[in-house]
């Protein structure tokens, strides 16, 4: 028996142009967006866990109106119900404030065994929310899982690091983040699209969670983006024409750049 809360984020479509609001935060309202692809791995893994045993998957998002699209997509893939925390005051929140909202929402959901997340969001790419959340909830964290097995109320994961592969386990309630190596996310199906229409989605404000407006948003953020500018496009590389001495030229080039 495992009830799982999966965190899903609505992110700007990475194939579109990035835009920013006047306070230098990512524009999430005026652009096309979608369910962060890295979160699809968490949805898939959660579904696999409940399909192998029983339990329900609740997807939770914090975001603007359109973030409902991310919840709907997760429900179409197979999650059972959704929660959307929607409040104008949240706009511009940093990771710490976001983790506060998520923690309060998870406490309100109450009936859960595992909180599952992707390894990062495809827009912010900070990877800190799972750890902050575990801290706020007072739960063990198993992060960057590339493989996950369950035995009773114990979960064991494999974490592939640069230098070593670790096997870690924890018992009881916990926060788990999964990588894009853990599974092959399924597509929704047309049946799933139709079924999602009947699945319950609750929308909560920060007041519903007992959070003050002053605790979230740009004003409460610990850091501030002062300015940004796009990186200059890559300049054309150097082309080495092989006239029988290509190898030598390559070696000379690498030596000149102190690679060899």
């Amino acid at each position, binding site marked *: 028996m495992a009830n799982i809360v999966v965190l899903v984020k609505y992110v700007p479509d990475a194939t579109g142009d990035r835009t920013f609001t006047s306070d230098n935060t990512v524009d999430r309202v005026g652009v096309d967006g979608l369910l962060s692809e890295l979160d699809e791995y968490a949805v898939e893994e959660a579904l696999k866990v409940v399909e192998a045993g029983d339990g329900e998957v609740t997807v939770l998002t914090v975001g603007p109106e359109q973030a409902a699209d991310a919840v*709907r997509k997760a429900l*179409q893939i197979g999650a059972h119900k959704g929660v959307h925390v929607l409040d104008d005051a949240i706009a511009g929140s940093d990771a710490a404030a976001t983790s506060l909202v998520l923690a309060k929402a998870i406490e309100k959901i109450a009936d859960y065994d595992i909180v599952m997340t992707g390894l990062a969001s495809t827009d912010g790419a900070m990877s800190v929310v799972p750890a902050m959340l575990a801290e706020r909830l007072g739960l063990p964290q198993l992060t960057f899982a590339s493989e996950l097995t369950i035995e009773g109320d114990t979960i064991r994961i494999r974490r592939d690091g640069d230098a070593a592969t670790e096997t870690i386990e924890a018992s009881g309630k916990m926060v788990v983040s999964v990588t894009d190596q853990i599974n092959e996310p399924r*597509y*929704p*199906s*047309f*049946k799933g*699209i*139709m079924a999602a*229409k009947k699945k319950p989605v609750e929308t909560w404000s920060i007041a519903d969670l007992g959070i003050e407006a002053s605790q979230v948003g740009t004003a409460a953020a610990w850091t501030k983006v002062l300015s940004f500018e796009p990186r200059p496009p890559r300049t054309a590389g150097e082309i080495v024409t092989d006239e029988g001495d290509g190898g030598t030229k390559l070696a000379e080039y690498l030596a000149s750049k102190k690679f060899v």
Partner: protein
Amino acid sequence: MPATRLMPTQESDDLIALTREIVDKELRPRVDEAEASATFPREVFRTLGRAGLMSLPYPEELGGGDQPYEVYLQVLEEIASAWASVGVGVSVHALSCFGLFTAGTDEQREQWLPEMLSGEQLGAYCLSEAHAGSDPAAMRTRAVRDGDDYVIDGAKAWTTHGGEADFYKVMARTSDDGGRGISCFLVPAGSPGLTADVPERKMGLTGSTTATMLFDGVRVPAGRRLGDEGQGLPIALAGLDAGRLGIAAVAVGVAQGALDVAVAYAKEREAFGKPVIEHQGLAFLLADMAAAVDSARATYLHAARMRDAGRPYGREASVAKLVATDNASRVTADAVQVLGGAGYTKDFPVERYMRETKVMQIFEGTNQIQRLVISRHLAR
């Protein structure tokens, strides 16, 4: 640029999004290799089937998606914009189920349709013969009653999915009474005596297998006859109206694909110091291509809405097939022109699009036959 679509419901919007996702991740990475090596992409049809995209226009209780043609055809168009052979295949599959759905008894439908629409199976239909294409009433393949069975002998030419399909909708002669002497049968693959000849070597749609199906004393239980004896040709022709809409949507998809490649290229390619799209002579060609694509789409959608409303739509289906496939042939040939010499090479897909759209003016009734249908309506 993906086409702008006004879908009737939220779920049909989501369906288009799902189709685009599968097209981008599963079809686009495979199409070049499969078409170049003439490999039939059986697995791609299973992927589409599991997502529910192979059975959209059929009722939910029989395993379908209960979607109007207005929605189904736009999904088909999205598929064909990346891969014509697969778009044609989805349309042929839908058409192969059509006879059972429209002419079968409740018992027959409940027995076979859910499996045929499950997404795991693929269908084919056998109407044409070597000497009977535009004039199917001239067919010679015979089904002779023998006790509780029919025994079928003959050869059905040009079968799309011939040798690959799980079931065949077969039109065969049960009496010598011309067009009134033809009956329709649902024949499972693997029936003893049923084999596929060597596939045709085609100019395009190389990923789609087309083969003559050989019937050598193939026994089919009488319970697999759809409709009454002698009803075969009307059943086949009713299916063709729906099939023509499918081909119209496929043609628009390929034309849209060609337009997208042409516009992207014309923005990048420079001549006389500026992108070629800034030369009016070429820009107007692109404008005409866009107008041809949009108007063909509007034409098939009109026919689809007539069908969805339960109105007669045979004339509209023929207009849509004619306009969409003629436009697609022109647009794809113009796309080659826009790319110049590059367009004539296999390094870009537009030469393939040009070869692929040619056949769309030929099958499901040649465009001469469409004009015949339209003019007969006018003369009524």
